[in-house]
């Protein structure tokens, strides 16, 4: 039964992806394209966060660190060298390398630090990267940041849209497989009960480090896409806001679901978009941020497990409920 269920889900995913792929050709609005690209980029970031939060049970307040590394690497490469494809690819490789190394060491620290302490330590590291970006002014131009040119193949917004979409789809498929692999199952076990996982013969630290690296590298890639989409980078890529965005998107969509991260990114970006549009229509919405806050609050109240999580549970319990009454009926009959 689960098989059928996932097969049907896969078809839905495929349809949605196909629709998104033809979207720019049927609806010609560049600002929609940009908005969607933004959603895809943040979806990638949120999915990378979900690997930590939803699948391994690690809370990090410093995820922006990897995002920022990606963004700055590509920015600096494009600015310092030529905005050519070869340098771009080099920047991607360097990003992967850097984020992998950094996340490796950050991952190692999960051994020593538990929950909040780890979260805060990652925040400290992200903060140090922020200071570095601020202070290494010859390269980063401080917090004002700098603009740069991008290789030709990234110039066209439609192409870029497709690239972001493609990245999101690939990351989604990879991570889906990753989380459904035997290794992914061990990660979930770690989330549930670390010490027990260890005594089943799994080396928890190695798994955490793997999760940390996978998550870090993908966040770095999101950072690259982000910087390219703006053709500009400044220290805001290292701020807590980015981490919080990733966190919020993951949670709103539903932790530990991956699709949730995508849906969360969509919801946040679009409600943001619509609320700011409303702000122009009616003065009530001038303070649209209040409504934004209310959306978060309502989301928790009505979708306590995130949208995908709550829907899943709801579906699950509807299916489960069927046999239950039958069971009690038979017993009742037997008694009478």
């Amino acid at each position, binding site marked *: 039964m689960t098989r059928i269920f996932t097969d049907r889900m896969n078809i839905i995913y495929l349809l949605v992806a196909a629709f998104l792929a033809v979207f720019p050709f049927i609806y010609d609005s560049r600002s929609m394209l940009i908005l969607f690209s933004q959603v895809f980029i943040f979806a990638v970031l949120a999915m990378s966060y979900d690997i930590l939060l939803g699948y391994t049970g690690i809370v990090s307040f410093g995820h922006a660190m990897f995002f920022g590394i990606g963004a700055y690497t590509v920015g600096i490469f494009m600015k310092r060298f030529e905005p050519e494809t070869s340098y771009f690819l080099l920047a991607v490789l360097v990003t992967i390398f850097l984020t992998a190394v950094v996340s490796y060491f950050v991952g190692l620290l999960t051994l020593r630090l538990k929950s909040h302490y780890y979260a805060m330590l990652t925040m400290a590291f992200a903060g140090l990267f922020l200071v570095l970006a601020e202070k290494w002014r010859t390269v980063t131009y401080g917090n004002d940041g700098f603009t740069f040119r991008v290789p030709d193949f990234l110039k066209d917004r439609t192409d870029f849209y497709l690239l972001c979409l493609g990245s999101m789809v690939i990351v989604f498929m990879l991570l889906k497989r990753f989380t459904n692999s035997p290794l992914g*199952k*061990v990660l979930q076990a770690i989330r549930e009960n670390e010490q027990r996982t260890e005594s089943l013969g799994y080396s928890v630290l190695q798994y955490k480090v793997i999760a940390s690296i996978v998550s870090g590298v993908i966040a770095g890639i999101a950072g690259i896409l982000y910087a390219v989409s703006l053709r500009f980078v400044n220290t805001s890529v290292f701020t807590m806001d980015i981490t919080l965005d990733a966190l919020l998107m993951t949670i709103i969509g539903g932790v530990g679901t991956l699709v949730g991260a995508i849906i969360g990114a969509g919801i946040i970006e679009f409600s943001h978009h619509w609320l700011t549009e409303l702000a122009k229509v009616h003065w009530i919405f001038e303070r649209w941020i209040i409504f934004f806050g209310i959306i978060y609050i309502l989301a928790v109240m009505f979708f306590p497990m995130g949208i995908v999580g709550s829907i899943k549970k709801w579906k699950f319990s509807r299916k489960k409920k069927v046999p239950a009454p039958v069971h009690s009926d038979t017993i009742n009959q037997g008694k009478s």
Partner: protein
Amino acid sequence: MTAILETKNLSIIFGGHTAVDAVSISVPPNHFKSIIGPNGAGKTTFFNLLSGQLTPTEGQVFFKGKEITKLSPTKRTRAGIGRSFQITNVFPNLTVIENVRLAVQSHAGIRYQMFKHFRSYKKFEEQAEEWLKLVLLDDRKDALAMNLAHGEKRKLEIAMLLALNTEVLLLDEPTAGMSLEEVPAILDVIRKIKQRGDRTIVLIEHKMDMIMDLSDTIMVLFNGALLADGTPEEIMKNETVQSAYLGGLHREHAAKA
């Protein structure tokens, strides 16, 4: 025949309190050994030292003649020492079958496979189901572990240990809280494993009839120290054991035996 499991002078001190005090034992392969002793005698702590949850303040642990004192729990499990826990210790938000499957997967050595779908390992699922059947829990395989009744969790705990298929099984009060009518079934499982003759079992229990029934030898811990180690009959005759552990009711019981 060399010992499969051996400790030398094993001690651990928690801030001044010696929980395990210079215990030296040796367990031959395929042997069934029980540990008894008053509450707080150090039985669980002794297990923790064997399975690597704790590192001793002093002394050594040997597995098949090799020293493993410094090895992590993970490595010891992989080497072949599996254990169950006194305090129920499962994965609460995973289903019962997933709980067991993780143990099966570990036994199969599939640890870092990240590109294949878990469902391509059908065998795991089947094996997990078999283990659940063995402990009378197969009808609850899709329930979340946290929704199990206490006794059911104990069974799950045993299933997970069995699924690891390790040479040495360390069982910490496996039947505590299990219902009267099901204890015999679980006893049967343990007995069967014993009869297969290829497993070494160390059991902590307070149920004396069960211990008398199963054990080849019994060791007694008192205030962390090894008080006695011998056949069930010898142990039951021990005065200290009778007065400080068994108490009045069991003395009659022992007399009958």
